Each structure stands twice: as structure tokens, then as C-alpha cells.
């Protein structure tokens, strides 16, 4: 039996190790090797997809090995519909992000190796089922991300990188402490086991036995770590500088994949393990998620740096996911809560994760193209009339913008519609307030499109060559998927629906 999941996680690391050892590699070899190993995820992910049975809701392709038996720590990997969607997303985004970085000529070997390290760590997070190595992957992902931002980033990259890493580690530290307490109380770090304890109330009893405030404190610790990572508003101030200063490829990976680690954590850890605490905190958290949706979108309107604008739009989009989850948790057990609304909220969250990955990565890619053609400019008012000079680029970027805006027919709509459908059924007023976010999103994305692409052709845009074939190719899979998932969402929905139905049918609340 081939350990498929271990292969998925560690193949990029093997590539990173090869690159690290191969001192005299030519640029072509570095690129080829990097692309090959980053594509391994997609290849292996597709193999997993072909063998995956959506009807089985427990993690499949499971691998369990004793690791540190003294501490009851096991090496456990498993893949369910949620993980599969994210593995596929990682498999699609990473190669594209790597290709987008091919303009980067400084120390390409180190850059590529770090990128592959980052990819493997993210995959580990999506597949690990035991807190111990889940946390190792979680923290390890920060190291390459830090160096990618600091060494290849913009002028204030150093500050942005430090802020990003310290802030995230600060959050994770609390999560680590929380899990230490969980381990002490239950003797296990297995997510599924802990989820069971959470669902049947054992966890509350055990933690409560230490002291009355322990269950809450432990919950808050775990919450903080995840909230910073997503980020939940207002723990987001690291995000705009980090996304803006990072090199294009890293921005794409950060927003498309790493931000999903946080949302994944909410779904995999916080919601199943702490159902009661989340239920109690959710009415409050709901406001924060709404804050992210509304303030994120309006703050984006104020940005003149296009990368910061896209960064804020990411904040807005990801808070839709949390909005759905919090609305669901808040409404759990309330009269009138239907499993139809719950299923819509959960499906919407997962689809939104995938869709946001596509659209945000494509937008960062497009801003990267603008930067490369204008000597590093990316101000909202620096361009104008680019569509006249580069119609193909304008068209593809337009598709990405409208996907991000949630235009029906493209992927973004389906996830957002389901989230709104779910939230309306669970907390109608929250859905009504969140509509403000939809409006503001349309405003700033159309402003982006208008200022950059329309109007008379400015000085910068005058000598703008249109996209070359090698620039179109990496964008095509993203754009293609936007259309496919917009028209045929069943492709993803069928993978997650049995899992979502199960979750919606037995909302975990003791």
C-alpha cells in the first residue's frame, strides 16, 4: 500500500532538499525541478480524487504510525472532502505562484526551495489528524513565508515580515498552551478523539474539573491562534502589509492557501472540539466577522496600493466564511434552525475557500503583471487606459475581478450565495448587514478596473505589451476553473456534500 497522503505532504520537501543540495543548478534546472515538484501535489491530488469516495465521511487513505508513544502522540494523516478540496487548491495555486515568481532572478534556488517547503507545510496542515504534528506543520509554514517576504519583498518588507511572523506566532502560542491543557486533561491530541469528547461533553467535564474557567480559557487560546491566522477582524493588521510587501508569488500563496489554513482550523478543530464554547461566543464573534466583511470592504475602497486593495478584499471574503460558521454555531439548538440552512452555510464556506483561492491568486498575479511592466508601480492612479494597449490582459483580469465580485456565472457567486442563504436562515439581520460588504466590494473592484484599464491611455500604459503566451498559460487554469465552477459547481459540491450533510444533520452540541 502506497502511503499516498505522506507522498502528497513530503514530495515538495524532497524537492526542496534536492534544490538545497544541488549547488550549481542552472536557472532552467531550478525552475523545472521546482515546477515538477510543486505539480506533484496536483498529480497526487488527482489520484486521490479518482480513488476518493465522497459517500464515506470519515477521513480516507488513513495512515497511522506510532511516533512518540510515551506521550500518546501518533503520526496520523487522513483526507476527507474538506481536506481534498484544499489539497486540490494547493496543487493548482502553488505551480502558478511559482511560475509567477520566475521574473525573480535573485537567488532563484533558495526562493524555490523555500516555496516548496511552504507548500509541504500547508499540505501537512490540511492532512494531519493529530495536533502534535499538525502544529509542527502550522508553525513550520511560517519560516519559509517569513524569508520569502523579508528577502524578496518590497521596500518595507522587513517590518511587514516581522509583524506577520510575531503576530502569528503570538496567536499560535496561545493555541499551543490551550492544547497543552487539552492534552493534560484528556491524554490525547487526536482530532477525531477530541472531537468525540467535545461532542459528548466529556471535554467540558474534564476541563471543568481543573477549574471552572478552564474550558473557556482553553477555547479562547485556540480561538486566538486561528483568528490571527485567517484573520478574523480586528486581528488582521498584519495582513495588508504582509500581502502588499511580499513578492507576487508569495502573495498568491499567502492569500490563496495560507489564509485557508485558518478557516480549515476553525472547521476541523474549533467547531467540533469546542461546540459549547463556540456556541456561547458566536453571537459576539458574529459581530467581528461582520466587521471584517463590512470594514474590510470599505477599507479596500480607501487603498491606493492595488496589492493592499486586494489584500483587504481577501479580508472581506474570508470573513464571509467565518460569518457563516459563527451564524451556524450561534443558531445551533435555537428553534427554527434548519439543517437546510446549516448545509448551505457549510457548503458555502468550503466553496468560498476554494473560490477565493482562485480569484485572489489571479488578482495578485495580475497586479504582478502590472508591476513587472511599469517598473514596480502598482498605484490605483498610476495607469489608465491599459485596456487599449493590452486587451487580452484586460479581459483576463476583468474575469478575475468579476469572479471576486461574485458575479453569477463565475465561481465566486455560488459560494457567496450559499453563505448568504445559510446566514439568512440562521441570523437574517447579519445577512442584511453583510449586503453592505457586497455593495462596497463591487464599488472598489470596479474602481480598480476603471482606473487601471479605462480612460485615455496614460504614459505608463502607452508602451504596455499585452500578455505573452507564457504569461497567459499560468492564468488560464485559474480563469478556466472560474467559469467551470460558476456553471457546474456540482464538481466540488459532490465531493463535500455528504460530509456537509452529516455535519448539518448532527450539529455538534451536547
Amino acid at each position: 500500500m502506497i502511503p499516498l497522503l505522506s507522498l502528497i505532504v513530503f514530495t515538495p520537501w524532497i524537492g526542496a532538499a534536492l534544490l538545497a543540495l544541488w549547488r550549481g543548478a542552472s536557472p532552467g534546472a531550478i525552475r523545472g525541478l521546482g515546477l515538477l515538484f510543486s505539480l506533484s501535489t496536483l498529480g497526487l491530488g488527482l489520484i486521490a480524487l479518482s480513488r476518493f469516495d465522497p459517500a464515506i465521511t470519515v477521513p480516507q487513505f488513513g495512515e497511522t504510525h506510532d511516533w512518540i508513544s510515551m506521550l500518546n502522540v501518533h503520526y496520523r494523516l487522513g483526507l476527507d472532502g474538506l481536506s481534498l478540496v484544499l489539497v486540490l487548491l494547493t496543487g493548482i495555486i502553488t505551480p502558478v505562484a511559482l511560475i509567477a515568481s520566475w521574473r525573480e532572478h535573485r537567488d532563484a534556488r533558495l526562493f524555490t526551495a523555500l516555496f516548496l517547503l511552504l507548500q509541504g507545510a500547508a499540505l501537512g496542515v490540511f492532512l494531519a489528524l493529530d495536533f502534535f504534528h499538525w502544529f509542527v506543520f502550522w508553525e513550520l509554514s511560517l519560516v519559509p513565508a517569513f524569508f520569502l517576504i523579508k528577502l524578496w519583498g518590497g521596500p518595507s518588507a522587513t517590518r511587514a515580515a516581522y509583524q506577520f511572523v510575531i503576530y502569528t506566532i503570538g496567536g499560535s502560542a496561545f493555541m499551543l498552551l490551550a492544547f497543552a491543557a487539552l492534552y493534560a486533561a484528556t491524554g490525547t491530541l487526536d482530532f477525531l478523539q477530541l472531537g468525540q469528547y467535545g461532542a459528548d461533553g466529556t471535554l467540558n467535564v474534564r476541563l471543568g474539573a481543573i477549574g471552572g474557567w478552564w474550558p473557556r480559557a482553553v477555547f479562547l487560546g485556540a480561538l486566538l491562534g486561528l483568528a490571527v491566522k485567517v484573520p478574523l477582524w480586528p486581528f488582521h493588521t498584519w495582513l495588508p502589509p504582509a500581502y502588499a510587501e511580499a513578492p507576487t508569488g508569495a502573495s498568491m500563496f499567502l492569500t490563496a492557501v495560507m489564509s485557508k489554513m485558518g478557516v480549515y482550523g476553525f472547521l476541523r478543530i474549533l467547531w467540533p472540539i469546542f461546540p459549547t464554547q463556540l456556541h456561547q461566543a458566536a453571537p459576539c464573534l458574529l459581530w467581528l466577522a461582520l466587521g471584517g466583511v463590512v470594514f474590510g470592504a470599505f477599507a479596500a475602497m480607501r487603498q491606493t496600493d492595488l496589492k493592499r486593495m486586494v489584500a483587504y478584499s481577501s479580508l472581506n471574503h474570508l470573513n464571509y466564511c467565518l460569518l457563516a460558521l459563527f451564524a451556524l454555531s450561534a443558531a445551533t439548538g435555537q428553534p427554527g434552525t434548519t439543517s437546510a440552512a446549516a448545509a448551505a452555510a457549510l457548503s458555502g464556506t468550503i466553496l468560498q475557500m476554494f473560490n477565493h483561492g482562485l480569484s485572489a491568486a489571479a488578482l495578485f498575479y495580475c497586479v504582478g503583471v502590472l508591476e513587472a511592466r511599469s517598473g514596480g508601480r502598482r498605484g490605483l492612479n498610476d495607469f489608465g487606459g491599459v485596456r487599449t494597449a493590452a486587451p487580452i490582459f484586460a479581459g483576463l483580469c476583468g474575469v478575475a475581478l468579476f469572479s471576486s465580485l461574485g458575479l453569477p456565472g463565475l465561481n465566486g457567486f455560488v459560494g457567496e450565495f450559499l453563505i448568504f442563504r445559510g446566514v439568512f436562515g440562521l441570523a437574517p439581520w447579519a445577512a442584511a448587514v453583510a449586503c453592505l460588504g457586497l455593495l462596497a466590494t463591487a464599488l472598489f473592484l470596479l474602481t480598480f478596473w476603471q482606473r487601471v484599464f479605462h480612460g485615455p491611455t496614460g504614459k505608463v500604459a502607452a508602451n504596455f505589451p499585452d500578455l505573452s503566451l507564457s504569461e497567459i498559460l499560468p492564468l488560464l487554469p485559474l480563469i478556466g476553473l472560474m467559469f467551470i465552477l460558476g456553471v457546474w459547481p456540482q464538481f466540488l459540491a459532490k465531493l463535500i456534500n455528504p460530509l456537509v450533510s452529516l455535519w448539518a444533520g448532527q450539529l455538534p452540541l451536547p
Partner: protein
Amino acid sequence: MSLPVQLLWLIPALPLLAAGIGSLTPRSGRGLASGAAIVAMAISFLLSCGALATALAQPAAHLVHNFAWFDLGGSAVRLGWLLDPLTAFMCVMVTFVGTLIFIFSTGYLHEDANFTRFFCFLSLFAAAMLGLLVANSLLLLFICWELVGLASYLLIGFWFHKPSAAAAAKKAFITTRIGDLGLLLGMLWLYDSTGSLLFYDGGQGVLEATALGGLVAQTTIGGLAVSTAIGLLIFCGAIGKSGQFPLHVWLPDAMEGPTPVSALIHAATMVAAGVFLVARVYPLMSADQGLAHVPVHALTVVAAIGAITALLGALIAVAQSDIKRVLAFSTVSQLGYMMLALGVGSWVAAIFHLLTHAFFKALLFLGSGSVIHAAHHEQDIRRLGGLRGPMRATFATFAIGMMALAGVPFLFSGFWSKEAILHAAHNWDVSHLPLYAGLAAVVLTAFYMTRLVAETFFGSPRSEEASHAHENSAVMTVPLILLAVCAVLLGFLGTPAYPWLQARLEGHTEVHGHPIFEGAGLLMLSIVLVAVGIGSGWALYGRRPRANANALDPIEGRLPGLFAVLRARFGFDELYAATVGRLNTAMAALSDGLDRYVWDAAVRFLAALGEFGGVVNREADEDVLNGGFDATNDRLRGTARSYSAAQTGGAHGYLRTVAVGFVLLVLIVMLGGGV
């Protein structure tokens, strides 16, 4: 020949295919892009005729074909096609008018560099519009609704190098999206309450008795029935799309688009989608009519908005001097009429007027396009004039369109459909205010259209461009003539003597007419009003034509204050800029400020606190304690290092602290008897 409902999707699919072809065609492939668009549209027209045959064979039936889109929880999100006389008549109209406008466009835009792109967008629009018509699901309707908005956005901003066009496109998209958010909320509410968004589904659909009964039975905020609340939210979408007060401001600006676009999208079809939407969900909108003790009925609001818009649009049109803006405000006003008809209970009158209006307004817009094309893009009526001689075909057809719009009696279609609306308003027992607004608009419409024709075609040319104008080629005049024929004949489908169209729309197979002069008081009154409007218009603008482009408008000379207010469109744009616009800017500034000065400041404060701790430790370490307490010294140095390490971002020190904490905590909990 008849088209079964299972194949109804072909009608929107063909233009979609043409749009796909157009999007992949290089700029040089003009013939391919326009040919594909026109052929697809023409075939869709034939298919629509087939669909009409199917629908008329059993007009009372709602033929549906539903299917699952994707799995969701225990069920699935379902979509479907719907074929009934309403859908079929609308499809025939859209494909017929669309084909003519496509043909006209090949002449109008033949010099444009982005010719292929234009036909791609036009086909995309047609596909979305037809999809909207055949949808049997509010969700599918909404999807197509947004896509027609996209096509409208792309086509208004077709000449995107003009900043005014780019701005108008954005304004149109955002303004309609405000209404669409209401529609979205209404749809979500409907979905949540009924568990379905299919219109008709063998008794389970949202427009069928079971679902409606449930919606009427519940009340919500303010004592409204849930059906009323949902209906009003859905109506918000119609307000935005159909340019109704108070969201009418985008439609006149949309005239920045090429004139065929104005004809197709902003006169004949898309802007009428709001009227179609209300007619489509009419069972829902009128479900609350049986309730006596509710604050308001949904249709009453529709009637009020329609009446206000009909009057407002007509008033503003009187003082505009851009040929397309006059027509744009006329469209606003006429859409108000249709809404008024819906509100007072006669959705068939609204659809009748929608259909006749589509033909004569498309005719008028294409006529104005013909003028603009001939006069080298001069579209200010003050600088035109005297075009009657050189542009005979355009003049004749434009005059027919003008008489249809003004409601010149008996021969012209607009007369009959407008009459049907006034009749319905007269019979409304809630209030007669909509009737009065409608009658006032009749005078105004006749007046401003006479002014428009007199200024454009009579007198003598008042600019270089106008004096060099000559008639356009057959590719542009033949569509005008065909539309003019329809603008006359279509009225006879629905005269009071033989209201065939109304009967079929309502699902009857027999037609019950009554003598035209039964209850002739209203009929006579409106004929007199039309005569007053045309007469006064001719007296002011026709008998003494404007001498030169800078001469004062006769009304401006007599009532300068009123004219200025009308010309400034009652200042709605300024009002919105000062309120909504400012609120929006303030909100953006607040959001950005919160980040910079509150959240980021808090983070910086915590960081500074950490730094301060590090400094204190180091100072204590080096100055105060130096040399003295060696044992303490070592410990403090360690702490200081870890603090400063935290500051400079060395993750190791931080992690070490965390690890120590982790171990300590485990110990505390274990020793404390946790396990």
C-alpha cells in the same frame, strides 16, 4: 412547428454560443463575429416563434422542465425552464427587435476598431436576457439578471477610453446593484420560507397556492405579511433595473453607450426586465390583496413608485436637449407607466405596453442613431434641425415612432396600450392619484416628443454637421422601416374590441371584447390631452423654429426657474453625491482609520510594551545590578535577551519561552489533579 419546453434552453444558448465565437475572434474577423451574432439571433427568433406556438396551444398551462444544479444537504439546488405565453411573447419580441438592432449595428459601428468585441457583448446580453425570460427559478432569473447587468456595464462603457463612458458604466452597475441587493434578500427570504426557488413545480413551486398560502399567513416587522415583505424586496430589484424613482439616475447616463445599445438594452429589453420580473412573480406580489388589516399592500407601493416615475421622467424630458437623453427620460417615464399598470392590478396591460413600447422605442432610438450617425455624432437638438429633407426614411419612421409614443389615436400601437393602462388605473379602487399622474404624463409626453421632432427635423440646419447630413444605407433604414410597421400594427393585437393578447397572456383561449366606445369618457379625455400636448408643442417649437443653436428655449424664456430645475433633473445626482456619496466616503475613511489608528495602534502599543520591558531589563542588568548580584544578573540577562529577541523577531527565543510555558502548564495541570 412548435418547440417543446425541454428544448427551450436553445433560445438563450445560441446567442451564448455566438458570444463565445465573438470573444475568440480576432479584431479582423468582423464578418464572422457579426454574422454569428445575427444568425444565432435569427434562429433564436424562429425558435421563439415555435415556443409561442407551443404556449398558445395551451395558454393556461405553465410548461416546465426542472433539473438539479448541484447537491446541497439532503436535497439539491434546482433550476428549470418555464414556457407560458408571457415567456413566449417576450422571447419573440426580444429576438425580433434584437435581430433588427444587430443588423443596424453592422452599419452604425462599421468604423469601430472593436467591432468584433461589440458583437460578442451584444450576443452575451441577448443570451442573458433570453435566459432571464425562460427561467423557471428565481435563482436562475437572478443569475441572468446580473449577467444582463454585466453586459449593460460592458456596453455602456464600450468606448471606455472616454472617462464619461467609463464612469457612466460604473454608475449603472452600482446603482442597479443597490436594487439587486434587495432582490437578493427577497430571494433568500423566499428560499428560507418555502425551501424552493422554482416558480412552478407541480404544486411545490413558490408561485403556487401552497407556498403562497404559507407566506400570506405569517406576519413580520411592522405587521406586514411575509409575502408583502418579500414582494417589496424583489420589487427593489425591479426599481434598480427599470430605472424607477429613486434609482432612475443611472439610465440617462447610460446613453454614453453606442446608440444601438441604448435601443436594445436601455429602451426595449433590459430595462423592461423589472416589469417582466414583477409580472412573473405577480401571484406573489398580489397574494396579500385578500388581507384587510395590513399597513400596505405590495402592489400599492408598486403603483405609487410607477406613478411618481411616470410623471417625473416626463417632466425632466421636457427640458433636455440631447436627443438621446430626451428619449432616455421618456423611457423612464414609460417604464413608470408599466409599473403603474402592474400596481393597479393589470399586469397584462403592463406587458402589452412593454411589448408595444419595445418596438416604438427601439425605433426611436435607432432613428436617433441614424441622425447621430448622419450628423457626425452631433446629438444636441439645438444644433440639429432641418433633417426632414435629406433624411426622408429616418424622418418618416421617427415620426411614426413619435406618434406611437405620444399616443396618437387609433392607428398607433402606443395609443392602445396606454389606453389599457389608463383604463386599469381608472378602475383601481384604492386611489385615483395614479390615474391623474398618468393623464398628466400623457400631455407631457405628447409635448416633449413634438418638441424633439420639431427641433430635429424641422426648421433649418443649425450646425455644420447637420447641414451635411444625408440618409444612411439600407442596412440602417430597413430595420427602421420594419420596426415602424410593427409600431403601427402591434396595437391591434390588444384593442378593447378584440383583446387577443391580453386574453392569451391570462391563459384564456376565448377572447371577450367590448365596443371601443363603451365608457368613452376616459378615451375622449386622453385623446384631447394628446391633442393639447402636440398642439402646444407645435405652437412653441414647430411654428417658429429655433433660429440658431444658442437661442433660448421658449420655455426657458418664459419660466427660467422651472426650466433650470427640470434641466438639472431635479438635482437628484447632486443630492445623492451629497448624501450617499459622502456617507460612503466617510465609511471608507472610518474603516481605514480604524485600522491605522485603533487596531494597528493597539498592536504597536503591545509591541512597545514588550520593547520597554526589554529595555528596563537590560538597563537594570547593565547599570544597576552590574557587578553586584551575579546570580540574579544571569537570570535577568536571559530574560532581557528573550524579550529583545521577541522584538527583533527571532522566533527561537519566543518559541523557547512558549515551550517552557507549555511544559510548566502541563505540569501544573497534572499536579493539580487534572488527570
